[in-house]
């Protein structure tokens, strides 16, 4: 079964705290992505990973970093979270078409 998982599904943090969002996929896809989606808006690409330790900035990388040490796992890290990083974060993986996880709803107070 082709699946992208995300943990946690909901997260509340205070401004200045560190945040770790995790993503897993069981399809052995080389390419993985992190997006954020704000209410009523489309997807904004944060980072792309082309394989283990091969990551590239997307359109809005500022304030974020990523880690990919295994092909099936891709992490998004927010060092010292800010209130404007409150959003829904989606992970995806692809060979050609993208498969999306269910999202993590992050609130930074």
């Amino acid at each position, binding site marked *: 079964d082709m699946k992208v998982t995300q943990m946690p599904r909901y997260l509340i943090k205070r401004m200045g705290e560190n945040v770790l969002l995790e993503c897993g996929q069981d399809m052995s896809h080389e390419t993985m*992505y992190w997006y954020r989606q704000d209410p009523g*808006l489309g*997807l904004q690409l944060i980072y*792309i990973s082309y394989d283990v330790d091969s990551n590239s900035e997307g359109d809005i990388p500022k304030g974020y970093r990523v880690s990919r040490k295994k092909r099936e796992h891709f992490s998004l890290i927010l060092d010292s979270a800010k209130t404007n990083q409150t959003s829904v974060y*989606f992970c995806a993986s*692809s060979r050609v*078409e*993208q498969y999306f996880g269910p*999202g993590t709803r992050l609130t930074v107070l």
Partner: protein
Amino acid sequence: AQSVTQPDARVTVSEGASLQLRCKYSYFGTPYLFWYVQYPRQGLQLLLKYYPGDPVVQGVNGFEAEFSKSNSSFHLRKASVHWSDWAVYFCAVSYNRIFFGDGTQLVVKP
């Protein structure tokens, strides 16, 4: 530059009526094209995909889309809309990475 335009932010149709959601793309070459659907509080799900070949592609739940190179379009259609189709629909084009449109909110009237 590659881009996708969905000119309608919101489309309202009556249940049982036909539907067309518009998508225009900008791409130098023959693209891979996709339609995704996002139900409330969920991730995006693939509805259908176009790989170069037959211009009309069938998707899930009675959706189909037609590729037109001359019009640079990939419009989504459905013959009879159901209330459960109420969602946001995203068109996307693939080139090195996938570029998404801003989405069209479909509202279904009873």
